[in-house]
């Protein structure tokens, strides 16, 4: 169980590394958003799942803890794409220019 937890957490960290690199290196707002939203949600969910596995190995009352972390995952799964959609809409409305190949 613990090995599974570490595997999940390190996978999440790798995805998060991808997120940060994408956030830094992509040329325009929309692609940065792409990297940020997907990688961020996925890595958070993976790390939290790893936390559940880690928690379930120790102590009693851990089902409640696991349930709470599952709730956090649920809310992130709803909230993060919503926020992404809202921000994307805002960027579109505010007139952020999509990056074109010949613009640089």
């Amino acid at each position, binding site marked *: 169980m613990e090995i599974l937890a570490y595997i999940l957490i390190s996978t999440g960290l790798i995805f998060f590394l991808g997120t940060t690199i994408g956030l830094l290196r992509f040329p325009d707002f929309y692609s940065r958003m792409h990297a940020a939203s997907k990688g961020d949600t996925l890595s*958070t969910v993976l790390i*939290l799942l790893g936390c559940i596995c880690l928690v379930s190995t120790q102590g009693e009352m851990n089902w409640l803890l696991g349930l709470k972390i599952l709730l956090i995952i649920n809310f*992130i799964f709803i909230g993060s794409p919503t926020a992404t959609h809202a921000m994307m809409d805002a960027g579109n409305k*505010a*007139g952020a220019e999509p990056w074109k190949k010949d613009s640089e």
Partner: protein
Amino acid sequence: MLLVLVRAVKGPTVIDRLVAINVIGTKSIVLLLFAGILFGQLEMFVDIALGYGLLNYIVSIAASRYYQHRRCLEPTHTANGGQPSRWKS
């Protein structure tokens, strides 16, 4: 990890910053849980993280609402200082 994001916070436009803040918000949930594991009393930190998970998208929604409405407002405010240079930080 967060150190890398600091550069993103200095990103070119406001909305980029918004994205970065959203990422930082979700990552602070994870860091809170790690702090809880380090303290050995995770059940106390889970509540804070849950509150974060519920709340941290309010800011981005508020900001996006701001941009949705503000776009139509621009002409009335040109009197107070020309075209607002929104895209320069």
